[in-house]
């Protein structure tokens, strides 16, 4: 309940934030603080320096950049959840993140950078093939979503980097996200969930990406599903068969909310449900 002492830096620019990070032994970036502050209160994490990027101007917008839609580092879950120009999978994932207060304060970029294994938006980000933009002492680099999620609560971000933006490509098709929450329905963290993006041309599935959350060490792409579905007509049967391959190559982990067998089963169920919902929009 009572965090250890730390030095607080209220950065006014990204440059200032990056240099504050670079100069510290153990620094953490804070945007909404929804993940960081509870961990600090439980003293599971005690950074020497907290770099608050919450006051940096210009980062709180969802903007259309032509080929992609850009989600700034300070865009709250609530903004993502009500965005008109973002794919449905991400909008739903954001609207089922935490609760009203958490969505008012927490940020989409923060949730993605935190890389919780049971979070909603990382799966959507991954299925959508988004690009993360990170700023560090050596400038800016782009990290494809496929390379971003490394392990449990570990992303490809370096300790001295800040996730400044997520770029959601405008690739067409349709998307959906569905999950089983810990309290049932869509409530709370995901026991398991899947985000799907599909494209169809002339009655044939031409493109597909499915990402899982909750089942393994990190949000993971279900490559086998895409492989199986592309080229089919996207029929109920095709989706069902493709969904059977959801956990191929995925290390499914048991936790308090499900056995390995159950989680693997749910991965298939929600893959099927998300794909079905996405295809229904086409």
């Amino acid at each position, binding site marked *: 309940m009572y965090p250890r*002492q730390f030095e*607080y830096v209220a950065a006014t620019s990204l440059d200032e934030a990056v240099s504050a990070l670079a100069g510290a032994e153990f620094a953490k970036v804070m945007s909404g*603080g929804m993940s960081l*502050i509870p961990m600090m209160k439980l003293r599971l994490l005690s950074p020497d320096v*907290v770099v608050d990027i919450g006051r940096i101007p210009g980062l709180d917008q969802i903007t259309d950049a032509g080929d992609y839609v850009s989600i700034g580092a300070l865009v709250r879950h609530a903004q993502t959840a009500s965005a008109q120009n973002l794919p449905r999978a991400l909008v739903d994932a954001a609207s089922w993140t935490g609760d*009203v*207060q958490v969505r008012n*304060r927490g940020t989409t970029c923060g949730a993605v950078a935190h890389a919780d294994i049971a979070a909603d938006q990382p799966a959507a980000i991954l299925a959508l093939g988004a690009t993360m933009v990170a700023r560090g002492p050596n400038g800016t680099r782009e990290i494809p979503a496929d390379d971003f999620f490394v392990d449990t609560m570990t992303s490809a971000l370096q300790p001295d980097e800040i996730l400044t933006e997520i770029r959601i490509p405008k690739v067409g098709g349709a998307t959906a996200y569905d999950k089983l929450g810990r309290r049932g329905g869509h*409530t709370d963290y995901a026991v398991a969930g899947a985000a799907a993006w599909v494209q169809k041309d002339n009655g044939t599935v031409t493109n597909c990406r499915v990402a899982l959350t909750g089942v393994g060490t990190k949000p993971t792409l279900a490559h086998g599903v895409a492989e199986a579905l592309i080229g089919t007509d996207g029929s109920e049967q095709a989706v069902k068969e493709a969904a059977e391959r959801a956990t191929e190559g995925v290390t499914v982990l048991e936790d308090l909310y499900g056995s390995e067998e159950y989680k693997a089963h749910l991965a298939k169920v929600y893959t099927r449900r998300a794909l079905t919902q996405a295809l229904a929009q086409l």
Partner: protein
Amino acid sequence: MKISLTINGREVSADVEPRTLLVHFLREDQGLTGTHIGCETSYCGACTVLVDGKTVKSCTMFAVQADGASITTVEGLADNGQLHPVQEGFWERHGLQCGYCTPGMIMSAVGLLQEKQSPSEDEIRHAIEGNLCRCTGYHNIVRAIEYAAAKMRGEEPPPPDWEEEEVSV
């Protein structure tokens, strides 16, 4: 660290340790003990306040982050002794028992009704999902918010649904 902010319409300046949580600043430094603490994982919502008009869990925010912000706590809702319609609704519809979650619950309801004039029951239930109550089973909290919503729309609130009479066969 020096911070300046507005709390319930009053300008406040203070010197705080960076690690001081907003909820402790409100309770311990400002004497606004209506904002409660029920957990440390941002789950119970007893500490909910409005920060720049949005509901926020004040136990998951450092006081330094509130520098320059405008904060409304439950103490700031009533106007010259006149209860806010949400407060009135909780009283009229027995929306509280022990009262501990109540300030946070009321702030969430205020936040909801700022955005939706006529929320459905389902919308009300989801809007207070981040506020745990262990006493009421939420039934009467939902009724209280429906009461307040009607009042704020200038309508007659629906009648209470408790049963005065016994069933005989």
